[in-house]
């Protein structure tokens, strides 16, 4: 894992003069190889996430089915965007779910009004959430620290409460409340024509899935997933560019010392506002994609728990690192969708090779941590990660890399950088 936000010069090799020349797509070699890793992970996900044959007991741990793969990359986008605000500027928004929700609603409204092509919906979700973020950001950024967090939380909770109740008033049903906004046959769909009656991109339905069976393995290739994956890669690339840009430098300066920045002739407010709006647009895009994959937008997407989830994803993965938030998103979604599905009979099936007494004992030990107990495992994971890996999962990756690398010194430098960054926050 070579993920660093700092330009710590590697050992004795000087200067950026050389590094600057060796760029591909405007990225340094290191960043470019990280991008390649992300591309490879995204494109090969159907294989990578399905390591176990589908008839084996371990198949329970396979995550390579379209819905979950879509969620991985969509929440990855959400977290990448959140990290632009939180990781770079240190402003902790506790209301980012509002933008996810607004994006979702916008996209479904496009389905209702225009038709099932996902393009207008996705575009509108970015625009609307951007405007919404501009409004909330403009007000909230008048304060900093915890006061900023509570302002964003308050806006998001108000949006949630209103979407759940008042805005679903039959007279002007904007959100369809508890049920969630969805497309009805009576909706106008002016541009629908005879396209598929499900979300599609110029005729390619999002739910199209090809299954490749190799022996006992079933690999699923889903059109919607690949659309999301491509968008995620683009989002990731843009975020790397932003991290490495003068703009990104200013955002990091905001986090480091806002006073010095002001007395260096830089106006911090528009920078933080721009970061807020950009990350709001990422969130809106993620919301739009959620609706594009599954055309139903529920109000819970705006609840504080959803805002909290993206905060946890980012910190779990490693705030301020490039790939950390994506990893964090993957981890949390994996637990939510895989661990929650393990039930008592699954456990018995796993341990059935053991003598009866031992089998029951093992099941009794493991059972509280899976199925209805998946929250417990997630809570423990949060604690363990933050206690033992203060820089998040990325730091864990770096540690592993250090252990496996012969050149311990090189790894050590990286590790120091991560620790320093952590201490500086």
């Amino acid at each position, binding site marked *: 894992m070579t993920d660093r936000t700092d330009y710590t010069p590697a050992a004795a090799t000087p200067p950026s003069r050389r590094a600057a020349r060796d760029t591909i797509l405007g990225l340094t070699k290191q960043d470019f190889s990280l991008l390649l890793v992300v591309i490879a992970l995204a494109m090969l996900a159907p294989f990578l996430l399905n390591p176990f044959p589908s008839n084996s007991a371990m198949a329970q741990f396979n995550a390579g089915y379209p819905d979950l793969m879509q969620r991985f990359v969509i929440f990855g986008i959400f977290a990448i965007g959140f990290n632009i605000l939180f990781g770079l500027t240190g402003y902790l928004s506790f209301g980012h779910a509002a933008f996810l929700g607004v994006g979702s609603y916008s996209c479904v409204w496009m389905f209702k009004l225009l038709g099932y092509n996902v393009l207008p919906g996705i575009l509108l979700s970015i625009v609307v959430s951007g405007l919404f973020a501009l409004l909330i950001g403009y*007000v909230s950024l008048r*304060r900093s*620290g915890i006061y900023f967090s509570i302002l964003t*939380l308050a806006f998001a*909770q108000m949006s949630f409460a209103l979407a759940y109740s008042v805005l679903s008033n039959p007279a002007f049903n904007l959100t369809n409340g508890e049920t969630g906004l969805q497309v009805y046959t009576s909706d106008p769909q002016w541009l629908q024509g005879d396209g598929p009656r499900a979300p599609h991109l110029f005729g390619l339905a999002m739910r199209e899935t090809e299954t490749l069976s190799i022996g006992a393995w079933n690999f699923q290739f889903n059109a919607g997933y690949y659309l999301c994956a491509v968008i995620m890669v683009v989002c990731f690339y843009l975020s790397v560019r932003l991290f490495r840009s003068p703009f990104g430098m200013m955002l990091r300066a905001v986090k480091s010392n806002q006073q010095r920045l002001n007395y260096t002739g830089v106006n911090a407010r528009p920078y933080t506002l721009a970061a807020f709006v950009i990350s709001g647009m990422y969130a809106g895009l993620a919301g739009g994609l959620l609706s594009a994959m599954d055309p139903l937008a529920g109000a819970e997407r705006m609840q504080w728990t959803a805002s909290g989830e993206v*905060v946890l994803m980012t*910190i779990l993965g490693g705030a301020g690192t490039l790939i950390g938030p994506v990893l964090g998103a993957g981890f949390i979604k994996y637990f939510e969708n895989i661990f929650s599905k393990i039930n008592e009979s699954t456990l018995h099936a796993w341990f059935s090779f053991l003598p009866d007494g031992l089998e029951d004992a093992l099941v009794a030990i493991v059972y509280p941590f899976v199925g209805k107990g998946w929250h417990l495992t997630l809570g423990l994971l949060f*604690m363990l990660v*933050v*206690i033992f890996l203060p820089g998040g999962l990325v730091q864990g990756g770096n540690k592993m890399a250090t252990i496996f690398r012969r050149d311990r010194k090189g790894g050590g430098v990286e590790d120091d950088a991560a620790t320093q960054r952590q201490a500086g926050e």
Partner: protein
Amino acid sequence: MEAFLLQILNGLDKGSAYALIALGLTLIFGTLGVVNFAHGALFMLGAFVAVTLSRLLQLSHKASEPSGTDFLGNPRYDDVLYVEDIFGPELGQALLDWAVPVSILVAIPVMLLIGFVMERGLIKHFYKRPHADQILVTFGLAIVLQEVIKYFYGANPIPTPAPDAFRGSFDFGVLLGFDPNTIIYPYWRLVYFVFAAIIIAAVFAFLQFTTFGMVVRAGMADRETVGLLGIDIDRRFTIMFGIAAAVAGLAGVMYTPINPPNYHMGMDFLVLSFVVVVVGGMGSLPGAVLAGFLLGILESFASTTWATTAVPGINQIIIYLVAIVVLLTRPRGLMGRRGVMEE
């Protein structure tokens, strides 16, 4: 007029719950500088101390003779309470009836201990860590605590009634010369309000009039200097954390008769208590208490019919709306100090 008084009463009561939780939270959050997402869980644990005690009091063994048949047609044996065996039927029943108030005696040492263990075992390692890490670790802890409770007690609310003597309600209206039934108020809620007032006064007195309190207050203002004076501020902060946990726990114990407790009641209060603390102003105990009562009363007014008719949905958003208005007009909340948690 009656409606106005009625909602003030309601607001004071809601407010006392908010104020108690916020008081403990602000001790930890505003003064130790730890963003404690497990504070709601402490409130919940307090409530379950009461539940546990009443469960223990209800422990029973089967009678030796069957008294009928059960729903499957098998012979049924009645339950006999151990507490009646030990204390005799009368005192046993009285103990059962007074389970919630009695729980206070149990809850104080239990919650202090939980607080000490939490601070020594976990929180103290996070004083110097970024807020993000504090959030992650305390949120993780909150989930673990509530899942443990869920494992033992299930997800359903558990009715935990007040003693017989405090059931029913009191007609304030008659006292003030209004018609009967205009301003009625449950006895237990009055008890809760008085209890909250006592706890709040005790915490203030403790911080104001004891040397311990003075040192802690000095430590809040400037931890390093106090440390340089050779005062062991760490140990005092541990005690402070224990006190905060006890205040949250007691708020939980006394809340059980008002609404049956369940394992996620802490999460329901978590966001709200942060809003209360921040509206009150970081690092200000009086601010937290003031904000608690203010938000409680405003919430009550917002739930009246005339308020919801005037602005549909106002009852859903009032707390957040007030928070926004306060924070925009008073940058550090009602009584916040400069520089606390502003970075």
